[in-house]
């Protein structure tokens, strides 16, 4: 982790470099924290117990471990993808206690007692969830990397609409939101698909929702 002191130093370096851009050679000043390196200490760990796809799991984790890495690296549930690790892409979407979240943006140890559903918990190749099936039928993917996140999001989005939760494009906050393409596009916009399968993904979701577009 960068300390604020280091940040200041490098920020000043940037400013200094900008002012001195006429010089051909500029030394970028960097702190000498190395000299004061503390001896290696094991990182703090903590125990956490939660339920993943209906199974109780107990882990002892480096407290810096994200929920995403707990799933992928510790439980080997690699269906949940890491696209950015910074909450910018939605590839890591999982459903926690009924609500979708970006699992890269939350530490695993914050989820004591939670019920977590990942793509593996929705269905398997032999017993696919209706949404998974619809993605195959409508070719709602290409490379497949954003796909588990899209599907987890899609499942949760339909529940959100059913629960009456409004979105940015819901015109009438007094009325129950409907499953429309505009609503779906808005609610799915946290899940980037660089392969650009959006048009097909919306077809798959409307198919599962049982609405005619």
């Amino acid at each position: 982790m960068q300390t604020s002191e280091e940040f200041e130093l490098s920020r000043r370096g940037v400013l200094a470099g900008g002012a001195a851009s006429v010089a051909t050679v500029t030394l970028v000043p960097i702190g000498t924290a190395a000299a004061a390196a503390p001896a290696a200490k094991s990182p703090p760990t903590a125990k956490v117990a939660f339920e993943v796809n209906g199974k109780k799991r107990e882990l002892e984790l480096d407290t810096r471990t994200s929920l995403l890495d707990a799933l992928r690296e510790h439980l080997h549930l690699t269906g949940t993808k890491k696209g950015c690790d910074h909450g910018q892409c939605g590839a890591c979407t999982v459903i926690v206690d009924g609500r979708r979240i970006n699992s890269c943006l939350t530490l695993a140890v914050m989820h004591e007692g939670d019920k977590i559903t990942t793509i593996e918990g929705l269905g398997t190749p032999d017993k696919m969830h209706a949404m998974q099936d619809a993605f195959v039928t409508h070719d709602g993917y290409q490379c497949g990397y954003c796909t588990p996140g899209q599907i987890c999001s899609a499942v949760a989005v339909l529940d959100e609409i059913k629960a009456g939760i409004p979105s940015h494009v819901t015109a009438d906050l007094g009325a129950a939101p409907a499953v429309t393409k505009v609503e779906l596009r808005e609610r799915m916009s946290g899940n980037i698909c660089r392969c650009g399968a959006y048009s097909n993904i919306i077809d798959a979701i409307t198919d599962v929702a049982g609405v005619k577009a």
Partner: protein
Amino acid sequence: MKFDTPATTNPIDQMKIVGKPTNRIEGPLKTTGTAPYAYERHDVAANQAYGYVVGSAIAKGRIASMNLDAARAAPGVIAIVTADNAGKLAKGDFNTAKLLGGPDIEHYHQAIALVVADSFEQARAAASLVRVEYAREKGAFDLAAAIDTAIKPKASFGTEPDTAVGNFAAAFAAAPVQLDARYTTPDHSHAMMEPHATIAAWEGDKLTVWTSNQMIAWSVGDMAKTLGIPKENIRFDSPYIGGGFGGKLFNRADVLLAALGAKAAKRPVKVALPRPLMINNTTHRPATIQRVRLGATADGKLTAIGHESWSGDLPGGGPETAVAQTRLLYAGENRMTAMRLAVLDLPEGNAMRAPGEAPGLMALEIAVDELAEKLGMDPIALRVLNDTQVDPEKPSRPFSQRQLNKCLETGAAKFGWSKRAKPGATRDGRWLVGMGVAAAFRNNLNGPSAARVRLAKSGVVTVETDMTDIGTGTYTIVAQTAAEMMGVPLDKVVVKLGDSAFPVSAGSGGQWGANSSTAGVYAACVKLREAVVQKLGLASDAVFADGKVKAGRRSVALGDAATDGELVAEDKMEYGDLAEKFQQSTFGAHFVEVGVDAMTGEVRVRRMLAVCAAGRILNPKAARSQVIGAMTMGAGAALMEELAVDKRFGFFVNHDLAGYEVPVHADIPHQDVIFLDEADPTTSPMKAKGVGELGICGVAAAVANAVYNATGVRVRNYPITLDKLLGKLPDMV
């Protein structure tokens, strides 16, 4: 098998399986999270350690000193790789800059160290303790400022930097109607969803990498060269690739550093490029400045076509070949193209989806729209009038097939083009509405491609090739090809891809993958059919259908040929000179309707249609997806995608998915795609071409032309953001 005369009738023409819209055979794996991507292969090697890459904080200069003490002392750290301790490393043929920098630094975020630790968290924390002092040198980062220093580049990808036919200057000067305009396209990032990632393991002097790579054989060769070890000692395995778009054509820092890290740590090491590092560490589509000059007669016949492009790259790099399509797209007796290349010390420029044509058509197809307006002509009529069925530079050389006009006319009818009004004349509430069109053009390329097919007693056919599936649908079209050839249903075919232990394919790039790789499978299946017929003692004209082989009155189960052991056949498709005799290209027309907020200038894409003529479409379902995905990327290029250059420090500022904006669900309407019925016998026995890059060609210009039609504001500098419209929009009534 050599393909040197146009294809006649062959088993693919039955089109019982090939040509049918088919669900992806790997779909159930991808949708359930069970398709294994590179970083996820926990099962392939025990005891994997984690590597974290450190990137250079300067763009150009050198590392004055590096202090690794604190990082080494950090918990869990096993090894640190730097150029200092990595041993001698050569640069790969496909890389412009070295994958591991130091002491010399060639670009910002060039990898300079890999910290290997027991856990990801430990590696990441220790990487932040690496202390580096740099001696920064001045670099060139501004394309516009550098174009006066740009020089004529060496020919690249078979593209001459300068071409000339007739007398362009005189014809342009004499043309009664002239257009002379400058356009700019910014740097673009592939931004594929799966970061570059590799797990590497050594066994003695043998290296295996599980990685995410489009071109297996190229990359094995480059890795061997870089490490100075024989190719035979390296295995690449890349069965699933989370998007590439050209960004994974070549080895990147993850694969080299994983290999070096594994050696240093004496255990398997996994490395993924952190998202914020990817954009400056890897390659991008270079920005261009383009000048297009079109001269026409008063009735719209083009007499002079000139297209120049300037781009930049690191020393030793190449130009963005943005003028390529202009040599072939329209008739016109007097023509010139020119490319000039400046040295820029930005990260490495390289291929991104439809390199050349994508940015080239962004300019050319606005220019055609502008010319149509000057002529008072419909832009479709202008394009149709200037169609050519032969290579305009060499009229003795015909196009193998060219249905550009039909694409335009079919699309016009379907899209309701006749309702298009004058610029700024259509309103829908607060929205200014407009329609735009552009031609799509991308050359067809074929590459040698080999495959192995195995027939088991059960009648199951297994295909093995090092071909890759980057989301293109390779698994499925390879299975369709083998099923059609061997007369078995799709579920009797197993497809194994992406392993360098398999026969060398054309790989995925340049939209050559589909036709080339299936042609290789075709060749191998022809051999397997011969082996089956011989084994069963059947006449050579036996028919393969319904899991049986039939000749005369005999009908035998296919699997019977393998009762005393698997039958294996391997072959490679190679090409004669048909691509020289015939210009093989793919064509299309993009139609776009936009709404532009009359108050804010916000642009929303409302409708999109592509009509494509691209040879036989092997799987219309996956091909459609390739096209809509490319249309989406084209909409991004039109409206939002731009790597912002810090011209003082020489890096792309918006180097993550929050800053580099790509289209999201809310940006993209329902998209329609029409494929014209075609089969091109000059391309291969498959009679197919590619569509994955055709789909992006022209899209951005169609959007730009629609914005013009909506507002009357012509924006020539992409992306068309609202600041470029504000203040120029028609007055509100």
